[in-house]
């Protein structure tokens, strides 16, 4: 095919290029720039090469130690979140009504936590869990459980996890519900005819038909929980000690608390890279699954 050469076409690309440059490339390059330098204030910068990256990835250094500690903490948090929210979301979706007015009622109720801003969620739970004036904290202490998320690490973790489950299980449930609704009635009728038990219906029909939305749910919940900042920051401020200091909280401490711009820039680049890699893995899995499905439909 003959292509017409027309250099004016560049002008058509220019607006997009400018928007992307100012919204993404330039800020990112600024961060790359910071990550290579050190500063002692006064807007004076010194070249440091890959020094910060070396320190960051060396667990024996102070920076590396803090980074890896918060990274493992964060991964553990994400794992716990997924292990609770995905099964719970599925159970909620399965027990939702299939038709009638109660469907709308369920959907609205489920959507409520999703509509609340992050820092408000944090504030709600911060007050809810306080032993002196919070309903939850007061009640727990009242029945003899010594609960205090400010001083006890386990209590702090439990609070942050329960808060996240409260806030985000709805998302998983709504996605699963959408997946369930797309299953034709014929499948359930055929399963009845085949004498399938409730469990067999779940494993043979519902779970396989939900796997696409589940993958999306896992991706979204992993990303969100891996990048979590506001809610634990409002509730525990990363404490007690460093026990709930996740990567983003650590990052803000370094960047704004200590004003170590170079270290913070290096950390955020590595953080960003991890997220992009995980996203890419999920994306690959999803598109492969999608391609398989398309081939199947093409053959049908």
């Amino acid at each position, binding site marked *: 095919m003959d292509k017409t050469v027309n250099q004016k076409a560049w002008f058509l690309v220019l607006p997009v290029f400018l928007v992307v440059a100012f919204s993404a490339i330039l800020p990112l390059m600024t961060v790359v720039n910071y990550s290579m330098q050190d500063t002692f204030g006064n807007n004076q910068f010194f070249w440091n090469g890959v020094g910060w990256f070396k320190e960051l990835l060396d667990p024996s250094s102070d920076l590396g130690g803090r980074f890896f500690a918060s990274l493992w903490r964060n991964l553990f948090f994400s794992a716990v979140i997924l292990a609770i929210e995905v099964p719970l979301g599925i159970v909620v979706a399965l027990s939702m009504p299939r038709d009638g007015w109660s469907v709308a009622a369920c959907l609205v109720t489920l959507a409520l936590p999703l509509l609340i801003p992050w820092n408000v969620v944090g504030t709600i739970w911060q007050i809810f869990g306080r032993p002196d004036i919070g309903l939850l904290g007061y009640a727990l202490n009242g029945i003899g459980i010594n609960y205090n998320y400010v001083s006890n690490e386990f209590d702090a973790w439990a609070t942050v996890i329960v808060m996240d489950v409260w806030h985000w299980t709805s998302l998983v449930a709504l996605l699963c519900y959408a997946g369930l609704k797309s299953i034709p009635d014929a499948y359930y009728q055929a399963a009845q005819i085949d004498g399938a038990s409730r469990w*067999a219906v779940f494993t043979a029909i519902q779970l396989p038909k939900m796997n696409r939305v589940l993958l999306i749910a896992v991706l979204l919940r992993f990303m969100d929980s891996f990048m979590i900042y506001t809610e634990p920051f409002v509730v525990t401020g990363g404490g007690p000690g460093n026990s709930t200091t996740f990567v983003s909280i650590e990052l803000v401490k370094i960047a704004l608390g200590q004003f170590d711009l170079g270290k913070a820039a290096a950390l955020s680049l590595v953080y960003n890279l991890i997220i992009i890699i995980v996203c890419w893995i999920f994306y690959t899995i999803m598109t492969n699954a999608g391609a398989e499905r398309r081939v199947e439909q093409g053959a049908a």
Partner: protein
Amino acid sequence: MARIDLVELAHSYGGNAADQASYALKPISMTWRQGGAYALLGPSGCGKTTLLNLISGIVTPSHGKILFDGVDITPLSTQKRNIAQVFQFPVIYDTMTVGQNLAFPLRNRGVPNSQIDARVAEIARLLDLTPDLKRKATRLTADAKQKISLGRGLVRSDVAAVLFDEPLTVIDPELKWQLRSKLKALHRDLDLTMIYVTHDQTEALTFADTVVVMHEGRVVQSGTPAELFDKPAHTFVGYFIGSPGMNILPAEVRGREARIGDHTIRLGRSYDNLPEGAKIELGVRPEFVDVAPEAPGLLSATIDRIDDLGRVRFARLRIGDAKFGARVPPGFAVPGTTAGLVFDASRIHVYADSVLVEGMS
């Protein structure tokens, strides 16, 4: 394996209160004998799928009872009824292999593994699925999928009946023939009662020993294909079975004579028992009326066109405003725009309010 009796069975999706005209299935009583091959034939919306779903228990009837071998199973769930059903669109459990798909109904009922393997192997052999048993049930063509669905329906040897709900709709015409004859062969081999729902008369007539014709929620006739052709019990049957369908002509009948307009036709039987005030019609299949040159004493009609079906030619005519079909005898040259009609008197039926009236000879 069972005889299935329907006792005053009826169903209304609107609940009990609705009046009978709105019933999806109007009260019927009939018996399906063990080992029979039945077809439920009728146009879309005539209640045939409702009847099927009532038998399998997917729908609970609002009236009446269903008996398997004399035992009332109306309140039982689908799982507890001993019944298999194949749906219009194939249902495949795509995380399993083809073999596991076939074994699924048996496994769910706790059949021992050795029996499952033997039965699955047999069904796979009958349906030509043996080479695919080990492969995953994904990326299959529509007919392969439907074969697996059929296999799952047939794999249980102890079922009271296997119900088919237009199972060949999604299949290419050529494969349709193959699968239909395969089903027929399976019916002979497996000694299962089969009930086959379809709106395609060819499918019904080739598959079944007994065809049950349904119309507007009612069973209008059940009989062998020949009975349906020779002696339709209802004008709908005459019109629906056969291609082209039966001719229906409004007429006045008295004794052995019928008057159409000012023309009189001799009938094969005598009708002195016609109900007062009923709408009287003559029904005669195009195969039993010949086109002839116009002559005094013959009913004359206007020729619209001639359809040459290869083996036989049919003339499409009009008598007044009524459309009419008749056979054109071999070698007969069509005379122009009008023709006379020669009736085979013994093949003329008389209908009162659409229902066949038996004449006296």
